[in-house]
Each structure stands twice: as structure tokens, then as C-alpha cells.
């Protein structure tokens, strides 16, 4: 009874147990049931992380992918914020241009990936560009939504108290935009990760995609799983950083 009560109060413990159980099933399946050409047990993947890291070029590839993600995210935030402000501050531009932005955002961007490669080459620029186009739109949409949700009475009262345009921007619009801007940044980070990783997997000479292809073609599942685990860890850390920032900055109200 008390054990049950403990588990009910700590769902995290049960969650950890579920994850461990799944890993155990995977371990058993990979060790005894499935051809080791295609899958590797988690214990062996964990043990191989060191040797994956020592494979010549892998640390550089992870660094390069991280660099692409960081640059793409920075550009996406700047572009998304400036386009969002330019479109969202005036009701006329918002009503005219938002449908176009939503239309472009709704297109399956993956179909134009080959064009990005032809334009920007197979190096880092094409990954960054593809990450930027995936990450910018959610930020634009969030910024415009944030601007739209400001209560008109706040603007009117600020103006009646003699605030000029800059004061209104600085003291009314920006503070109210921050929560939706940060939730846009979180969605933007998801988009940037998706875009950069898609482009990396499509074609890559030195980034992470090069090594996933290499390990797949050599039927080396242990190293492949290890590399993908590192990549997943990078994605989780980046997501978590933006999510923490969102929690931190949306609390002021």
C-alpha cells in the first residue's frame, strides 16, 4: 500500500521504470532475437560511445552540426522577429501579408531541399539556409500573434498618458510580446533542428550526415546508434535550453 502510494506521488519514478523496461526489451531482442547486422543492444551502444567519439572526424562533425544549428537559429530569430514586427505592427500589413506567410509555411518544404543544395552547395551553407527557412516561419507567426493579442486599451491609455511611438514599443508592446516570442523561439528551434538534420541526412561531406551514411553503409549499427544518441542528446539539450528560457521569461505577468 505505501509503495503504491509512493509510486502514485512520484510518476517520474514509474516513468524511469518504463524507460528501463523498454531498454531491457531492446537489449534482449538485440542480443538474442535479431541479426546483429541491423541492431545493437543498448549496453554495447553505451560502451561504444567512447570509440565513436574517437572515430576521426566525428567530434568535428558534431561541432559542425552544432555550428550550423546555432547560426541557423540566430538568423531565424533575427529574421523572424524583424519580419514579424514589420508585418504585425500595422493591421493592414498583417491582414495583407499573413495569409501569404501562412500559405508558404504550409507548403511541404522538404520538396525543395534539392534546390537548396543546388543553390548553396553541399557544405554548411545549404544546411543553415534550410534550417533558417524551417525556423523563421513559426517565429514570425508567434510574434504576429503576440502583437495581435495586446489589449487595445493598454495602447490607448499609454498614448493618452503622452507616450510616443518608441515609448509604446519599449514599454507596452515588447513586454507583452515576450511570452509569445519565446514560445515562437521554442517552435523555431524545433524547426531549425528539423531543417538542418534533414539537409545533413540528405547530403553531407563533413557533418553528422556523412557519418550516419558511412556507418549505415558499413553495417555498423553500434556506432550508428551511438552517433544518433549523441545527436539526440544535442537536440534535447538545445530544446531544453529554449524551453527553460521560455519558462523564465514568460513568468513576469
Amino acid at each position, binding site marked *: 500500500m505505501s509503495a503504491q502510494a509512493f509510486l502514485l506521488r512520484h510518476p517520474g519514478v514509474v516513468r524511469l521504470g518504463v524507460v528501463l523496461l523498454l531498454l531491457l526489451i531492446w537489449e534482449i531482442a538485440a542480443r538474442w532475437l535479431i541479426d546483429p547486422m541491423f541492431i545493437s543492444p543498448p549496453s554495447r551502444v553505451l560502451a561504444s560511445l567512447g570509440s565513436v567519439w574517437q572515430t576521426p572526424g566525428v567530434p568535428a562533425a558534431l561541432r559542425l552540426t552544432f555550428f550550423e544549428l546555432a547560426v541557423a537559429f540566430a538568423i531565424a530569430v533575427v529574421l523572424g522577429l524583424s519580419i514579424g514586427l514589420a508585418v504585425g505592427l500595422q493591421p493592414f500589413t498583417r491582414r495583407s501579408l499573413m495569409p501569404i506567410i501562412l500559405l508558404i509555411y504550409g507548403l511541404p518544404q522538404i520538396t525543395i531541399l534539392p534546390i537548396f*543544395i543546388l543553390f548553396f552547395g553541399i557544405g554548411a551553407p545549404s544546411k543553415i539556409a534550410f534550417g533558417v527557412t524551417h525556423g523563421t516561419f513559426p517565429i514570425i507567426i508567434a510574434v504576429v500573434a503576440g502583437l495581435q493579442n495586446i489589449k487595445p486599451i493598454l495602447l490607448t491609455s499609454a498614448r493618452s498618458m503622452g507616450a510616443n511611438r518608441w515609448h509604446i514599443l519599449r514599454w507596452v508592446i515588447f513586454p507583452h510580446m515576450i511570452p509569445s516570442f519565446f514560445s515562437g523561439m521554442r517552435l523555431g528551434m524545433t524547426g531549425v533542428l528539423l531543417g538542418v538534420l534533414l539537409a545533413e541526412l540528405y547530403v553531407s561531406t563533413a557533418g553528422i550526415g556523412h557519418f550516419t551514411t558511412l556507418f549505415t553503409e558499413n553495417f555498423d549499427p553500434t556506432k550508428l546508434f551511438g552517433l544518433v544518441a549523441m545527436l539526440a542528446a544535442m537536440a534535447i539539450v538545445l530544446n531544453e535550453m529554449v524551453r527553460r528560457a521560455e519558462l523564465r521569461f514568460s513568468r513576469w505577468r
Partner: protein
Amino acid sequence: MATRDNQAQSFGSRLVQVGFLIAVLVLWYLATTRWGVNRLLLPNPVAVWQQLLDVLRSGEYLPDLRVTLTELVIAFALAMTSGTIVGFFVSRRHSTIRVFDPLFAAIYSIPIIMFLPLYVLFFGLGPASKIALGATISFFPIVLSTIAGFGNVDRTLVTAARSMGASDFHLFRYVLVPGALPVILSGLRMGFTIALLSIIGSETIASLAGLGHHIVQLAEGMDMARMFAYIAFVVVIAALLNGLVSFLEARGRRWA
């Protein structure tokens, strides 16, 4: 007065939107004919239009379309069945929701497409890896929305139905499903959209057939006008499929 202002404004907005599209087309045309942008980077829009007509007339898209649609249907059927069933059973108890909901949400927040190499290694280059990946990716929005849908059905409705003597089936059919369906349907629509995207994406990255694969083939053959035409074709197909799903979602909502 106000309505006339609104009308004038919305007319202005339409004008800007149409003007934007025309400007893009004119700039594209001028860039290829006057400003000497390389044909290998940007084909002439007229040539693209002719190629598009040719693609449609020749019917060469049929085998690829069939492969992609088959993958999509199987992947979505798998995700829909497993997502709604798992979601329903998780949603039955408060404790299981608290255990599994954050777990699914955490996995959903990372780009699952990066596991594609594992899927290719395990399932091969053929349709199986696309189906498996598409099903995995679209499982998460479906399961999360099913948990949210069934989990948030008003408790008083359930208690009231029970006290009036509803059986398990009656409770499910007349209280739980109508209450949860709107949320589940929007999850299904989202799952469908990202299943389509991830299937075209994985065809682009590593495959033997399908719409995404065909675009890559044309890109590698530097057949730019035809590639642009094919991209336009795939975009239209995707838009049609998404429109169909939105329509079915609206119908389903009304049925509930």
C-alpha cells in the same frame, strides 16, 4: 460607414496579396530572360509550366504517386490504430496519464527524422523504412491528442451517465467518444500531415521510388525545369491531401 471602410481595407489586402504573387512571377520571369540568371539554378517559368503540363499528360507520376500513397496509407493506418488504442488505455487512469504523457511529449519534441538512418539500416531502402518512420512520427501527435481528448472528458458527465445506468459500451459510445472526438480528430489531422512530410522527406533522403525520390532523380540529372514542375505537382498533391483531411475532420466533428 465602418463596413465600407472594412470592405475597402479587405480589397486593399487582396490587392497586396495578388500583387505579391504577380511580382514574384514577373521577377522570376525577368530574372531568367533579362538578367541572365543561370538556367541550371532557376529555369524559365514558361518552361516549367510546359513541363508541368507534360508531366500531367504523360502520367509518368503514376508509379511514384502509387508508392508514396501506399506508404502514406499504411503508415497512417498503423499510427492511427496504435495511437488511439494506446492513448485510450493511458487515459483511463490519472496515474498512467502522469507517467506516459510527459514521456510521449518529450519524444515528440525531438526531431524523430534523425533516426532515419537506423530505420534504413533495419528496414532497408524500400517502402518498409518509410512506412515505419512515418508511423512512428505520426504516432506521437495522435497518442497525445487521444490522451488529452479522453482525459479531459467532463467527469460529471461520466458520473451522470453511470448513475443513469449506462453500460461500459454506452458510456464509451455516447459520452467518451463524442467528448473526446474533436481533440482526437485534430491530432489525427496533424499526424496525417507530418506522416506525409516525413514520408516524402525520407524518400528524398534515401529510397528507391516515390515522389520524393523522383524529385531527387531530376535534380541529379540537372533537369531543372522538369524538377520545378514536379515539385509544383507534389506541392499540389500535398495540398489536396491536407484539404481532404481537413474536410474529413470537419465532417467528423459534426457527426460527434
